[in-house]
């Protein structure tokens, strides 16, 4: 059972990620006939210089009506309820929630001095604590994966560590790794093992990562 733990965590992570991926599955489709990028004309484009900001002044009735229609469409537009970005957000919040539940359901500390000769076997599965921990680890893995998929273009090493998205990515990934390590370490040990500190650090790193970009 113990050696299957990593498999369960990874499988759960993949399933959740795959599920969220269905939301935005065709995002990467390439359209070969598209012209070059818009950024090439933002800096020195002649059409910007003369009257860049005046909207709808001196325009014909036809173009004014078109602009009005566009504004109306924009006003009616409702952002999608399910998106890759939203999936990432809720997976992250879920991770912190389950990490908190894991901490709350932690068993009493194991006997360290004056222990009875025969101690009950250590439970590494089937308790609320282990279930919450595995769920939190799976959600953490899925959160990082969806972050990589849907927010990859927000992460730029050139911006350095002062960039909030870089801080978010590094703290979130570190937190997820620490949580996975703690769960794995505990599950593979038949004797009491110190894993709480690592898991707590992981959970806190995830929480701080969320707060930085909240």
């Amino acid at each position, binding site marked *: 059972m113990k050696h299957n733990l990593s498999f369960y965590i990874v499988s759960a992570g993949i399933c959740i990620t795959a599920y969220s991926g269905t939301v935005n599955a065709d995002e990467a489709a390439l359209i070969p006939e598209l012209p070059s990028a818009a950024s090439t004309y933002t800096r020195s*484009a002649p059409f910007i210089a003369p009257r860049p900001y005046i909207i709808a002044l001196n325009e014909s009735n036809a173009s004014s009506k078109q602009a009005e229609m566009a504004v109306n469409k924009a006003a009616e537009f409702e952002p999608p309820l399910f998106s890759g970005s939203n999936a990432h957000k809720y997976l992250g919040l879920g991770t912190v929630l389950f990490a908190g539940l894991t901490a709350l359901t932690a068993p009493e500390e194991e006997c360290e001095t004056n222990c009875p000769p025969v101690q009950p076997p250590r439970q590494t599965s089937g308790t609320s604590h282990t279930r919450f921990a595995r769920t939190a680890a799976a959600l953490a893995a899925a959160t990082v994966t969806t972050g990589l998929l849907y927010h990859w273009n927000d992460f730029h090493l050139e911006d350095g560590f002062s960039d*909030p998205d870089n801080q978010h990515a590094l703290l979130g990934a570190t937190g997820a790794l620490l949580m996975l390590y703690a769960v794995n370490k505990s599950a593979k040990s038949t004797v009491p093992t110190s894993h709480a500190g690592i898991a707590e650090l992981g959970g806190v790193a995830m929480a701080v990562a969320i707060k930085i970009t909240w």
Partner: protein
Amino acid sequence: MNTQLRIAAILSGALLMNSTCVLAEEDFVGWLLDFSRTKEVKPVTDKQYQDECGECHFAYQPGLLPANSWEKLLAAEALHDHFGDNAEMDKETLSAVRAYAVENAADKSWYKRSRKIAAAAAKGQSPLRITELRYIERKHHDIPEKMVKGNKDVKSLSYCDKCHTQATKGVFDTDTVLIPNYPDWDD
């Protein structure tokens, strides 16, 4: 050390290690305890700023440019030629508008997108056009020309609110983008 103390100690340490937050603002505690979303750009809250700027164009949120840029842009002599137009205001109004813009500029804001703009500007940028910010350029890099310049209902990246449907609320998230005439723009 019991669990609660350990969690509190780690949380405090991790937040203090976030040197940007510690060094950048005096209001760190306020930010820390505020759980309202500050992911985007602070919406315009000043009526005078909204009225004066919004009279001719979308009232760009001050958090879209660093303070240095607003200082240059809203200097009395600069408004004679405000991107080709005369945007002069009386002294008192200009002072109030400039003060609001500078006080809420990107480098003085806790909002995430403003912090990103400020981080980019810290590398020596103080452009007059929002579209010249490296961060903004990068975010729009993949948008094909035909959807902006070649789109009769957009024409320029300068018209933020043509595509960012919640621009007036300071929200520029990809999920809220609707490019006129290209409903499936992100396919």
